[in-house]
């Protein structure tokens, strides 16, 4: 359902569950790379796929390990813009329970990893969104949820709506739908997780940080929101 953006590297191996084969025994999974992977059977653990020099010692790239950690504890910025935010909240709540992916919301951009643009981005809101994005520490990812954040959606004729949040900040995953179902958002997060892992494998992680990520789009006629704040307020507090 979700579409990956900015990712022209090869996709990560995908596991396709196979029927349990009585002949072979155990549970087997077929991978894109070819070959089967055993999950082990009964008390016998599966043979280790990761090459190990010494028995009982696993070796791997540190990048992989970090990516594993990152992808399994994505903290999203508590930030709802419009109708899509309601579905986003639904995803976090009892029935769909986003916590099981390690995804929790955090109200401050300073500790957040992912920003879900859940809703219509209007020109007045463009500057605060950019500010919030810049306040987030690297590495950071953006999910454009819904057609509004992707392309303006039902408001594409409007005089005050930004035609997609990618005019302001770079986007990693686009989720179609108006609003996308909670399942679609979950799928987007799974795509993001695999993207993080595969980026680490392919050495893309360095490109993700730094100035290049900020699209060179002039936000000329955006609302001068920060100027409107009374002088006593330091700029950091504008993010709430």
């Amino acid at each position, binding site marked *: 359902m979700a579409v990956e953006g900015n990712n022209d590297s090869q996709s990560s191996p995908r596991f396709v569950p196979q029927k349990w084969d009585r002949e072979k025994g155990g549970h087997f999974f077929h991978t894109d790379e070819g070959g089967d992977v055993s999950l082990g059977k009964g008390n016998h653990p599966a043979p280790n796929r990761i090459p190990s020099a010494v028995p009982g010692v696993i070796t791997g790239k540190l990048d992989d390990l970090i990516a594993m950690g990152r992808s399994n504890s994505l903290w999203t910025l508590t*930030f709802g*813009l419009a109708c899509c935010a309601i579905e986003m909240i639904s995803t976090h709540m*009892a029935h769909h329970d986003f916590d099981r992916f390690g995804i929790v919301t955090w109200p401050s951009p300073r500790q957040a990893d992912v920003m879900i643009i859940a809703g219509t981005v*209007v020109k007045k809101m463009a500057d605060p969104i950019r500010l919030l994005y810049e306040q987030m520490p690297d590495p950071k990812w953006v999910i454009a949820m819904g057609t509004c954040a992707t392309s303006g959606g039902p408001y594409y004729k409007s005089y005050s709506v930004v035609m997609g949040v990618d005019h302001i900040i770079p986007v990693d995953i686009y989720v179609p739908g108006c609003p996308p179902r909670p399942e679609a958002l979950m799928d987007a997060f799974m795509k993001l997780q695999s993207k993080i892992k595969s980026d680490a494998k392919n050495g893309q992680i360095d490109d993700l940080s730094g100035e290049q990520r900020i699209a060179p789009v002039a936000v000329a006629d955006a609302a001068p929101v920060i100027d409107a*704040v009374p002088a006593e307020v330091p700029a950091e507090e504008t993010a709430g």
Partner: protein
Amino acid sequence: MTTESQFETVDMMLNMGPQHPATHGVFRMVLKVDGEKVIDVIPHIGYLHRGTERLAEVETYGQVITLFDRVDYIANLNNELAFVRAGEQIMEVEAPERAQYIRVILAELNRVASHLLFIGTYAIDLGAMTPVMYGFRERERIQNLFEHVTGARMMHNYMRIGGVKADVPDDFVPWVRQLIGEVRKGVEECDKLLSTNEVFLGRTRGVGVIDGPTAISCGLTGPSLRGSGVAYDVRKDDPYEIYPYLNYKVPVGENGDCWDRYYLRMLECYESLSMIEQCLDQFPEGPIMAAGRRIARPPAGEVFSHSENPRGDLGVYLVSDGTDKPYRVKIRPPSFCNLVGLATMTRGSYIADAVAILGSLDIVLGEVDR
């Protein structure tokens, strides 16, 4: 001895939003504070101004219904109903009885869903984490039914000028009956958990008081106005659809504080559930769409119609020039008007109470900014 007046004090400006978890969206307010006390509140809105009213002028009547879904995105069906009724008035058609019953059942269910969301998020604002889980659990059940009937969880586009899009599925009545039982239990759970909680009472009783005449002058409607003791409910005072055939009470508060506004919504949930039961008992057979042309091309003229949305009096002023697109659509947004009262309520309270007061108004930014 030094007195306080000998020190020079400076009012501080404190900015909240537009990204702030307690502002329920992209609302921004600047508090002028003296220590912990709020002296003045300057609300800033428009961070979700999508130009709905102007867009409605270039879309046909059928398409405008989809825009209304997105105006108040927590009570979508109530919004559709408001526009569809205005359209019916200007077209001079009347929906058949069965369609009216379907609409009222769905609208009342949506009211419950909306209030459940309010109860949950309000509890979060005040520091209670559990009710929101209960609220959303019940809301999810209601959304499942909506999906079954209309095909969508949120943006239904189900009502039409002169009826509804499609008849309800065969298992609608038993499903709704079962749903009501479940939801009622869930509401009771939230009620028990929250309404008599010491901490909750301490945070809401006597906070954000607004008296009746001021509330009317500010244009407050819905539970926010009824909390101040003014019994104004469009369903009773200007009856529409099949509401006159139903037996229900409109709860009215006394003190005009946050607790009254909160508890009214809780009581309204029970009332709505019993209204739906009555509707199911009376549920007639028959057509679901008025006879006539499918494409709306009303005569030139103007109508004003309003209906009761979970947040208050939702009005639609429709001007037609005789073509298939409205000439002007003006929405009377209840949350927008309720926000006018925010400054009056908040002056003189503490900063932490500002969050409680804002939450008790139950604003939806899509409707405030349109």
